[in-house]
Every structure is written in structure tokens, then in C-alpha cells.
């Protein structure tokens, strides 16, 4: 009885799902394509191939590069983007001395409260402060940026597929809209106040191209090409997203070495224990 009911229910579900399959396949045959072609489907590009010092299981921080990336963030990105999960004290991890961290913190203006009147004011940052937001609130951010809120960058490289490569590709990927795109999708013309970028999900980005050659002057003498700055800031954002990245992989090797040793011991123990029991014959 239970099997009879089961067979009926099974056939019912099968019929229902195949009914949907029938309509779906009919629609596909009717339209002549599987997925409706869109500009995003055809012109979106995967991030460019670019190598970072932190890549792979043996990755290391390139402190020089992180310092350059911090400089790019400070002089360019921070005009619009916050970095709210990072504190100035964290910059010590980039190889700055305590005095340097204090000095760079003081070069930022953070919101404060007047100790005498209780009124809000601003004051120079201290190492315990977090990076300040460039806008007072989301409405101010929208108003200043063509109705788009510049996202916080702290976790950007973890919040996108192939994070650091994505950031690098986006910053160096601005280009004129291809003629082929406009020929195929005349409605997809990049709107006013938007910029065409094939590495962005919907191809049209509200952020103007932020980097141009020589925009910053690096203290270490590295030539500040657009590609160099994009790479440096992508590396810096890899650090802001996961300051523990290198500690993680280094710990990982120690853990794996221990586990491998323990597992070999466990294997030997198992062989020892089972030695008295005849080995299992292969099943014919």
C-alpha cells in the first residue's frame, strides 16, 4: 500500500516537473536561444591576470607595496571611500614605526567632541581611531556622487570574486564603449555621469576613472603609473580585508605538518592493531 501511494506521488511530482520542462524547452526552441543575450552577458570580462605577493599558500606581504597602496588610498580613494573596519593602529603592521603611525594618524581629521562644551567638532586622529568616513551620512554620499554611494573599501577584496584582481582590473579597465556593443544593443549606451568599464558587473560605473599616471609621488621612488598604483592599492585592500592572511597560511603549514605526522602515526598504529586479523579479501 505504502509503495503504491509512493509510486503515485512519485509519478505526480515527475509529471509536474516535466510539465515545466516541456514549457521551458518549448520557450527555448521558440526563442532560438538559451539565455536572452544581454550586453552584460556578452561584454563583461573576467578580472585580468595579475600576480600579488600574497598569492598562493606561500604568500607574503610586500610591505613596500602596502605602504605605497596606503598612500594611494590616502591621497586618492579616501576622498570618496571609507575604510571603517581599519584603525590607524593597524598601520603598524605595514612596517611603520610607532612615531610614524602617530604622525600619519594625526594627518587625518576625525570627528570629535569638544570636552568643554560637548559640541561636535573635529580633531586630529590618534592611533586608536578608525579611518574616518568622507561623508557625514549616506544621503550626503549620494548627493555628492551622482546618486551612487561609494562603498566602504575595508572588505572589498573579499566581497568580490577574485578580489584583488577585480580591484586592479576595475581601476585600469576604463575604456570607450565598444562600437560592437552599441551596434548590437543600441539601448545599452552608457548614461550620463556613468563610465564604461567591462570589469564592472553591469558595465557602467558611477565612479569616474580615479587614477592617472603620476597622480601620486611615491616616497620610495617607484614610478607611479596607473597600473602600478592600481596594483599597489589592490594589494593594500587585500591587507585591509584580511590583515591576518599571511599569519593564516603560515599557521596552516604548521598545522598541516603536525597533522601529517599524527596521521602517519595513526596509520602505523592501525596497521599494528590490525596485524593479527587476516586482511580483507577482495570482493569478487
Amino acid at each position, binding site marked *: 500500500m505504502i509503495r503504491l501511494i509512493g509510486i503515485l506521488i512519485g*509519478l505526480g511530482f515527475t509529471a509536474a516537473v516535466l510539465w515545466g520542462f516541456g514549457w521551458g524547452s518549448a520557450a*527555448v526552441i521558440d526563442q532560438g536561444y538559451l539565455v536572452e543575450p544581454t550586453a552584460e552577458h556578452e561584454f563583461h570580462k573576467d578580472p585580468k591576470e595579475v600576480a600579488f605577493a600574497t598569492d598562493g599558500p606561500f604568500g607574503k606581504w610586500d610591505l613596500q607595496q602596502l605602504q605605497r597602496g596606503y598612500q594611494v588610498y590616502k591621497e586618492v580613494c579616501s576622498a570618496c571611500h571609507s575604510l571603517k573596519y581599519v584603525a590607524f593602529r593597524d598601520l603598524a603592521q605595514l612596517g611603520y614605526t610607532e612615531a610614524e603611525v602617530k604622525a600619519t594618524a594625526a594627518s587625518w581629521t576625525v570627528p570629535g567632541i569638544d570636552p568643554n562644551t560637548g559640541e561636535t567638532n573635529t580633531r586630529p586622529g590618534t592611533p586608536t581611531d578608525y579611518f574616518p568616513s568622507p561623508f557625514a551620512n549616506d544621503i550626503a554620499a549620494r548627493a555628492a556622487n551622482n546618486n551612487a554611494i561609494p562603498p566602504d573599501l575595508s572588505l572589498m577584496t573579499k566581497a568580490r570574486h577574485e578580489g584583488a584582481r577585480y580591484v586592479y582590473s576595475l581601476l585600469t579597465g576604463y575604456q570607450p564603449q565598444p562600437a560592437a556593443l552599441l551596434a548590437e544593443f543600441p539601448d545599452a549606451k552608457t548614461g550620463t555621469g556613468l563610465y564604461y568599464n567591462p570589469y564592472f558587473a553591469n558595465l557602467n560605473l558611477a565612479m569616474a576613472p580615479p587614477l592617472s599616471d603620476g597622480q601620486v609621488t611615491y616616497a620610495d621612488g617607484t614610478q607611479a603609473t596607473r597600473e602600478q598604483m592600481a596594483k599597489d592599492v589592490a594589494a593594500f585592500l587585500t591587507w585591509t580585508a584580511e590583515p591576518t592572511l599571511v599569519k593564516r597560511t603560515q599557521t*596552516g603549514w604548521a598545522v598541516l605538518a603536525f597533522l601529517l605526522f599524527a596521521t602517519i602515526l595513526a596509520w602505523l598504529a592501525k596497521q599494528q592493531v590490525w596485524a593479527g586479523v587476516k586482511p580483507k579479501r577482495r570482493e569478487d
Partner: protein
Amino acid sequence: MSFPWAKHYEPKAPLMRYLDEKLPLPRLVYNAIGAGYPVPRNLNYFWNFGVLAGFMLVVQIVTGVILAMHYAANAGVAFSSVEHIMRDVNWGWALRYAHANGASMFFVVIYLHIFRGFFYGSYKAPREMVWLLGVVIFLLMMATGFMGYVLPWGQMSFWGAKVITGLFGAIPVVGEPIQIWLLGGFAPDNAALNRFFSLHYLLPFVIVGVVILHIWALHLPGSSNPTGVEVKSESDTVPFHPYFTAKDGFGLGVFLILYCALVFFGPNMLGHPDNYIPANPMSTPAHIVPEWYFWPFYAILRAFTADFILPAKLLGVLAMFSAILVWFFLPWLDKSPVRSGHYRPLFRKFFWFGLIPAMLVLFYCGGAPAEEPYVMLSQIATAYYFLHFLVVLPIVSMIERPEPLPFSITEAVLGDDNKAVLGENTTPAT
């Protein structure tokens, strides 16, 4: 416990004798996972996953309890409290990655444990109750995993919660009030986050309870084995300790290597980048996908695209829940007296060339965007999934001619069984 030749616990030290008289906890352990539990000698490594699942449950509870000390279940600060754990709590990143990937590894182990059961017929008499409790554990795990994914309050947390609780809205008439009651509002917000956290903390301990019942029910008939032939005599078994503590110890080592490789070298591989964006009710992600371990069932949900007597959405919800509920009826749907797939030629074909490919397709399509060809593929796979459990298994078990079974486990292992003691505890060969 289960067989007359099981070794008996004999405490020697005075303290252990005292304890055995007052609270025989060591005796319980001895009989449950010690030398007092005779286990078929021919278990292969697929029988390792029960122990591994138990291990992962403990890992999840330990890491979870510590994470809860630093996490704040409030929609305003949940996301930043997770970042606080990642950045400021000593080894907080390791704990959180171990917990998030621990959930994944727990499900890997559980899926292998379940499919072991499918192939070797572990659900059949006399172990139906073990199986039923196992399905209950799986359902509790899914609820726990789902609610845990909501806690970081990222974009996928929020939208996942919205989609899954939205399923209740498909129930006619009472659906919408139920949905609002479950969420404590019209959309996931602080009320939902708080209750999810509370339940996420509670359910693992409920799972511990059901696991104890699962193991208790298992110890009455004893473990099944790859031949599916029941234990007949002492030569068929070895004591759990030291034989399977040693074997499972090695398995645990291999498992830990894989688990730690994931935690330390690819901790975000199985997660979704969108969950590092704080929840935003105003911005819908391009593709809302649950965690990978729900993908097969998510694919089934989305496979019902056309109304067929009932509305398509309701059909999808019914099918998704039925896809797991059907497992409850497995012991009665598959009536073949032969347990192990090794001796069932027809069943074996449907298992390897039907169920496994269908499951893999569903896994893949559940994580893919809801567009063609993934929808059509998951429709075919869904059709086979239901046919397999509800139509193929009952019919195969009626018409199949099984291959000859070995007389005993000992015979299967050693080639002959001269030592088999035919006594009153012997059951006839099936």
C-alpha cells in the same frame, strides 16, 4: 550490549569500581565505543563517517560557543561584530573560519554517511529506527546551518533568509501570516536575527540528544556492514576498541588534513563574496544562492516552473520538503531482502548511473543562476530523483534477482567460515 560474546567491563582500580557502582559512566562508554561493542570486522572506510560526524558536531559546538562570546545578535552591529572577531579577537579569524568551514565539512561527512546508507541498505530492518533518527538529525542540521548563515548579516544572509522564509508564503491562505509570525515582521530584521541566533544556539544541543538516540538505536542490532549479511558468530566481529578506534583515528587524521587545508588556505572558497557586504534590504543581489549544501534542494525548489494543478511555487516548496521526507519512507519503499548494493545488480545500476548523476546535476544547478540550461537540467534531474526513490526502488526490489550472498562475514573476509558456530544466536542466511 548487542552480542553475547561482547566483552564485559571489569573495573580494576578501586576508584573505577566505586564509580561503576555509583554512576556507571565508564561502563556506558566502554559498551558504546569501547571494547564492549563488537563491530563487523569487514567495515570499509565508508563506515568512518559516523565517527567523523560526531567529531564535527563537537567542533561546531566548541567553536560556536566561543564565537557567541564575541558576537552580537543585533541587526545594527552583527556585521561589525563579526569583523571584530576577525580582526580584534585573539585567533578569532581561525575560530570563525573553522566554524564556517566546519559546517561545510560536517555536511560533506553527513552526505557521505547518508549515501553510504543508500548504497549498503543501512536503512533496512532491523535498523529502520537508526535511519529515521538520522533523517531527523539531517533536518535539524539543515535548520541550524541555515540560521547560522544568517547571523553575519551580510547580503546573502539577509536575502537567503528572505527567500527561505518566503517559501512559507506559498502555503495557501495561512502562508503569509505564518511567514510574518516566523520572522517577527514583514521582512527579516532584528526580531528574525535574534530568534535565529537563539535557535542556532539551541538546535545543536537538540542534535546531540537525537545523536545519542541514533547511537543507542544502532547498538541494539549492531553496525551494518558492506556485505549486508548480519553478524552470526564471534569470528564475524572485532571489538570497537582497539580495532575501530585505531582505524577511525587514521580516518580522522586524513579528514582533519582536508578540513584544515580548507580553513587555512581557502577559507572563503565555499562562501559567497556577497556575504562580505553588509545586509541591505534596498539592494537585491544578482543571484541569491544558499550555502552549497542546500543546492540540490534549492535546485528542486526552482525546477517547478509551470502550474500543474497546483501553483508552481507551491509545487516547488512541496517537492523540496518531500525530497527529504521521502527518505523517511525508504525502509518501506525498498523491500529487497538483500541490503548491500554489492549483491543487487539492477539496484546498483540505478544507483551509480541514476541517483548519483542526478544528485551531482542538482548540486551544480542549485548553485547556478536560475536560467537555461540549468533550469531544464535540474528539471530532468528532479524528475529522476523522485522516480528513483518512489518508483524505481519499489519496482526494482520486486523484480530484481540478487547475486548470491556469502554465508557469513567471516566467509566474505577469509574465503571460508569453518569457525562459524551455529548456535541459538545464529540467524539463517538471507
